[in-house]
């Protein structure tokens, strides 16, 4: 990536509110996140409403002829994307809990590469605060 890209670090939030496969939003968002990771910004991801289904575990897409891109979320830690916020209200409404989600982790460089959880379950008030504190919000 070019040198001009470095410099000011802004807070970027990617908002994911759509289920995977039925529409292309989830995959598009993931690709943008991976591409933009090269710019070394302060990135957070939020999953709420049907977006929580994007990180559900146990997907098997063989029979629908689409690529199962859910394993790629597990690479986000390698891309230094480790702030993933998931709405408690959205999980509750869907009868889901953290156990139904993939185990997304990262290795903390500042803590002897200790493996830590990337996922934080938050309520709507915390999500509102998160959105309110951003420089850039990208919505999918």
């Amino acid at each position, binding site marked *: 990536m070019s040198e001009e890209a470095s410099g000011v670090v802004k807070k970027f939030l990617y908002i994911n509110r759509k289920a995977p496969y*039925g529409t292309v939003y989830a995959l598009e968002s993931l690709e943008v996140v991976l591409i933009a990771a090269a710019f070394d910004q302060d990135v957070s991801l939020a999953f709420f409403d049907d977006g929580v289904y994007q990180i559900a575990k146990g*997907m098997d897409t063989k029979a629908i002829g689409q690529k199962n891109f859910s394993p790629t979320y597990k690479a986000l830690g390698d891309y230094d994307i480790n702030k993933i916020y998931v709405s408690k209200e959205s999980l509750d409404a869907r009868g889901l809990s953290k156990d139904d989600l993939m185990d997304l982790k990262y290795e903390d460089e500042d803590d002897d590469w200790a493996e830590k959880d990337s996922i934080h379950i938050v309520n709507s008030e915390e999500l509102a605060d998160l959105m309110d504190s951003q420089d850039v919000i990208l919505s999918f």
Partner: protein
Amino acid sequence: MQLHVVNKSPFEKSTFESCLLHVKKGSSILFIEDGIFAALNKGKFSEKVKNALENYKIYALEPDVNARGMKNKVMDGIKLIDYSGFVDLAAEHDAVQSWL
């Protein structure tokens, strides 16, 4: 009797609820694509689906259920079918109403 096909998430669109208002007793409802999120044994719509099972035959397309990681979460009483089962259902009914 008609086959009613719901392909949108009940959390995003009102098509499932509209379907329930307009479906005759004895008809069939089939959940496909993001519609399968209405077919789960837990969550906001489980009570509605449970009640609907008393009046309608309800199906969910298994490939769409599995793709979304919802295997083992489908409500008891909802029959899982594959693509050829979908074709059979369409052929068995007088007409298909797609709740787009």
